[in-house]
């Protein structure tokens, strides 16, 4: 469903040097030589410290960012070349951003999604009823989005991403800022979506509870490279003496684990002339 082969993305940035009006070009590698594939129906956690390249990967998978190296296919398409076709086969949710119309009732944003993805009226009504029930949207379906709580807005965003029934769902930190109850409800929904509809899910998160409860596979990206790929049990096994999953992941991020052999080098300073 998702295939990456040697994918890299570098950005050229101009930096001011000490001398007046002189600038030098520098190349920053946000992602380099990234290869993995996700089979249909998998629920994959995509972890990594801030600035590791998670969002860059997602932007390449959705086609809004073109990789500078390598090959990438999502739902059988080359994302950057077939962006609009792909958009109909993929759902994307950013926990820190929203696709909903801030000043209008939630229901109106859904109606626009129907027109945007050309979903016919009956199918739309059926899906909306289903999502309304599963995500418990009834009480605020007609409330302007700006009046929703974060948990409500998040559920609204997830519904909006699923109204065209995409076979792939990409979630970028969907549980950020949610309280324990909202989190649990969201996890139950995602788990059901994956188990019953077979929707392939790729999830980035800093909440390891999400990973433990949802993902049958975990990938860790660090400094733009994949540093771990396996099950949650495999992940624990990288640091058998650590008791909590947080500590296991912390060791992986800080290079204490076996997987990260490279000298620690933060993205911001990994500048090649």
């Amino acid at each position, binding site marked *: 469903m998702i295939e990456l082969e040697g994918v890299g993305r570098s950005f050229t940035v101009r930096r001011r040097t000490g001398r007046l009006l002189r600038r030098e070009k520098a190349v920053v590698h946000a992602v380099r030589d990234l290869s993995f594939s996700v089979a249909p129906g998998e629920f994959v956690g995509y972890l990594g410290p801030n600035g590791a390249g998670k969002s860059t990967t997602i932007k390449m998978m959705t086609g809004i960012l073109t990789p500078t190296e390598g090959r990438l296919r999502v739902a059988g398409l080359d994302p950057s070349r077939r962006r609009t076709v792909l958009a109909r086969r993929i759902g994307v949710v*950013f926990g820190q951003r929203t696709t909903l*119309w*801030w000043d209008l009732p939630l229901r109106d944003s859904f109606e626009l999604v129907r027109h945007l993805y050309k979903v016919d009226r009956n199918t739309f009504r059926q899906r909306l009823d289903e999502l309304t029930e599963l995500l418990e949207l009834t009480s605020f379906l007609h409330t302007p989005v700006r009046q929703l709580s974060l948990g409500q807005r998040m559920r609204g965003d997830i519904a909006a991403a699923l109204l065209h029934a995409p076979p792939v769902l990409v979630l970028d930190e969907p549980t950020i800022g949610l309280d324990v109850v909202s989190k649990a409800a969201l996890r139950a929904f995602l788990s059901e979506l994956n188990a019953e509809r077979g929707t392939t899910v790729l999830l980035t998160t800093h909440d390891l509870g999400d990973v433990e409860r949802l993902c049958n596979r975990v990938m860790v990206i660090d400094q733009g490279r994949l540093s771990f790929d396996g099950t949650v049990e495999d992940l624990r096994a990288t640091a058998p003496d650590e008791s909590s999953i947080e500590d296991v992941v912390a060791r992986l991020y800080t290079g204490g684990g076996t997987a990260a052999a490279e000298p620690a080098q933060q993205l911001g300073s990994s500048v090649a002339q």
Partner: protein
Amino acid sequence: MPAHRRGVVFQLYLRIAGYGFRRHSTYRAAALAGAFTNTIFGVLRAYVLIALWEARPGLGGYDVADAVTFCFLTQAFIGPMQVFGGTLQLAQRVRSGDVAIDLMRPASLQLWTMADDMGRAAYLFLVRSVPPTLVGAALFGITVPDSPWHWSAFGVSFVMGVLVSFGWRYLVALSTCWINDDRGVNALSVILTGFFSGMVLPLNLFPGWLGAFANAAPWAAMVQVPADVYLGTREVWGALAFQGAWAAVLLGLGAFATAGARRKVVIQGG
């Protein structure tokens, strides 16, 4: 594209325009405050222009009634044409990185933004254009087009003015992709638009090369030209062709810039 698909696409953008209209209608207090301000300044400007035209009758080819009409017409353009700078939300979305979501949608960023802005203009026309003009008409008396043909020519010219204004503001907003902040460009845009549109003074009072430049530049298409079409002081087809040409140029540049932004896109944050 087959006709039925074109119909579906048109429906999408029509709906977005409707949402733009409703979105702005939620800021009712702001719109009413704007209408009030437009009216008060309209009255002040009217007195200034009356004094000017009484001292210099026939200046720029206008008589006193034309000048007063010009005053209230241009006050009516402030909202829909965003003469005193109205940034598109797009600029803020580029700054914050929210534009990532807009770029993912299977729709044109430019048409989407344009539809939203047309909805805004339609709402502001009703709230900020009509009432001040009526007040002006009641207080000073203004001239009115004499035929349905003349009215419809003005209608088309008005919409073209909004399109040119959008085309310009879209470029200003998209510049954020390259310079990270739109405040400087925006301040410049406000000055250029205010001065060269005919908002501050009718462009036919500008002398020599300055007048020639102002009358040829895109900002004239936002205020001076539709006002002239209303007053009947400019040949209609020439006026519409001028506006159409600038709309085409600016929207074309906008499409070009959108493609460039997609290629270079460095989406900020997260």
